[in-house]
């Protein structure tokens, strides 16, 4: 009987962690100016006295924050996807597909637009995005009848409508505020990691850490919630309170991620789905593995995005959508072939 043992946990998470470290180093070494891998290792892990200041600045101040935020945003979006899938008992759920990211983005843009007028602190953007994500999640539950009874198609339609509304709202607000260049709106809508500010890292890291820890603590409950509310009740889960904590945690993570990166799609779909095929569905392993893989996947995607077109940058959201779109269609097709997932 396969069971989750300490050694299995350690092995899977150890391998994934090693992969994330390698990807991070590669990402730090990759870019227009060539920095050798050994130099990057030296700069990150220890003695960099023999490396010139310009190279150190490139690695630590230019690429460093971007890679760090990529790790955080990837972990947040992927884990939020896995949590949504279990709570809604729907393998197609993802913060972007469900419109939760859209809600967060709309609120974040509102704060940004108002912030210019009323001189709000920059930390108000992630907070507003958190609120927006929370409202979108609440609406989603309300529209779908909640309690995991929703049909996959009903949920998807809700998400499509939320996204269309949020995109319209974002464009409208940006136009009214008049301070956005056209291309920056575009970047928000497709999702990117190119306008990263160092002072954002702290708030985002704290939010993502808080969200991840909450989700990890409730990962056993998530296993039982994935069986349905009544099954979870019968196995001793205080369903309402655990669900509320999990939704708060995901909204917090999604809000933080969206506030710095806009609408990066499909990470929450691609990562948990692929991992379930390899390591199974037990959330006590799946959630931390999803966080690590999401972090690595997004940094890898972003590294591709900034190097694949020589000299020009692609928004990372374009890369994840190119991978995620077809996967989504495949999953939808398979779900329909299996019949309604009640």
């Amino acid at each position, binding site marked *: *009987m396969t069971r989750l043992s300490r050694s299995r946990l350690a092995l899977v998470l150890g391998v994934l962690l090693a992969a994330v470290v390698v990807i991070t180093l590669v990402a730090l070494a990759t870019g227009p100016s060539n920095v050798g891998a050994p130099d990057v290792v030296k700069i990150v892990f220890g003695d960099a006295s023999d490396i010139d200041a310009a190279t150190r600045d490139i690695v630590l101040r230019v690429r460093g924050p971007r890679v760090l935020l990529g790790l955080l945003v990837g972990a947040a979006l992927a884990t939020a996807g896995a949590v949504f899938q279990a709570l809604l008992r729907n393998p197609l759920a993802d913060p972007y597909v469900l419109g939760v990211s859209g809600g967060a983005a709309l609120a974040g843009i509102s704060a940004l637009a108002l912030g210019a007028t009323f001189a709000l602190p920059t930390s108000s953007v992630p907070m507003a995005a958190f609120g927006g994500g929370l409202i979108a999640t609440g609406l989603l539950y309300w529209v779908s009848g909640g309690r995991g009874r929703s049909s996959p198609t009903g949920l998807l339609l809700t998400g499509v409508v939320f996204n269309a509304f949020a995109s319209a709202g974002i464009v409208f607000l940006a136009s009214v505020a008049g301070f956005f260049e056209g291309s920056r709106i575009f970047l928000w809508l497709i999702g990117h990691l190119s306008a990263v500010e160092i002072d954002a890292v702290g708030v985002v890291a704290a939010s993502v850490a808080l969200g991840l820890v909450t989700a990890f603590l409730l990962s056993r409950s998530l296993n039982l919630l*994935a069986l349905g509310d009544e099954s979870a009740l*019968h*196995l001793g889960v205080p369903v309402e309170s655990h669900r509320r904590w999990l939704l708060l945690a995901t909204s917090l993570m999604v809000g933080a991620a969206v506030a710095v990166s806009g609408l990066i799609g499909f990470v929450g779909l691609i990562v948990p789905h692929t991992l379930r095929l390899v390591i199974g569905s037990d959330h006590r392993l799946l959630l931390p593995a999803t966080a690590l893989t999401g972090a690595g996947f997004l940094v890898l995607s972003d590294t591709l995005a900034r190097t694949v077109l020589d000299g020009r940058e692609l928004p990372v959201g374009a890369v994840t959508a190119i991978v995620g779109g077809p996967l989504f269609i495949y999953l939808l097709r398979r779900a329909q072939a299996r019949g309604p997932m009640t």
Partner: protein
Amino acid sequence: MTADLRFDGVQAEVGGRTLLAGLDFAVRPGEVVGLIGRNGVGKTTLLRIASAALAPGAGRVLLGGEDVTTLSRRALARRVALVPQDLHVPFPFRVGELVLMGRAPHQPLLGLESESDVARAREALDRLGIGDLADRDITHLSGGERQLTLFARALVQDPEVLLLDEPTAFLDLKHRVEVLAEVRAFAARGRAALVVSHDLSLAARTCDRVVLLGVGGIVAAGAPSEVLQPDALRRAFDIEAESFAAPDGQVVVVPRIPTARD
């Protein structure tokens, strides 16, 4: 000492509509009680009330004298297990994983299953003859295999009271007999079981007592050979049926199928 399960003036409601009212009966330790009645009469609703998944419209369900709605979810799940009719999960959990989830109410929030938990799960699977399914993806099971898996999970939960909602509906005769034998063995360990069943003759052989439900309430309750008689069956099911004593003395119910001439 394990607890009894007592329905005390329970009123069962679904969507504001009263199905059953003023229900009084008990399941005592060491006893298997059958819950029998036509579709929609409120049998599943009663099991949901007994497991505190649903609040009764009136009255209460007492577990060893304690109102089940006052117990924490965890405390209740350690003492009462429910085997649902069926379960659809859109994720590829393994059979062994699903069965081990029965240990969840006994474990701390964080932590993994112990060797003894795994041994328990393996034993339950083996006893039900599905040990070879342990590593199978639950989304690929047949209805009967799923039902056996859910029963194994309930056994692993190690409760004082077992609630079973048509536990043999998808099973062949061999597996029906095996599951019902396990229910008897469970009761023989001084625990209480309440079984919803549509197979009256098998219920009669399994249960110490049966509660026959009609629209609104109990039609008859008591020993199967006393309850499962033509008059009560007519009132409960609106059918004509005959009851015979099998050579071993247990009651066999044979319904009459109306023909075109009737």
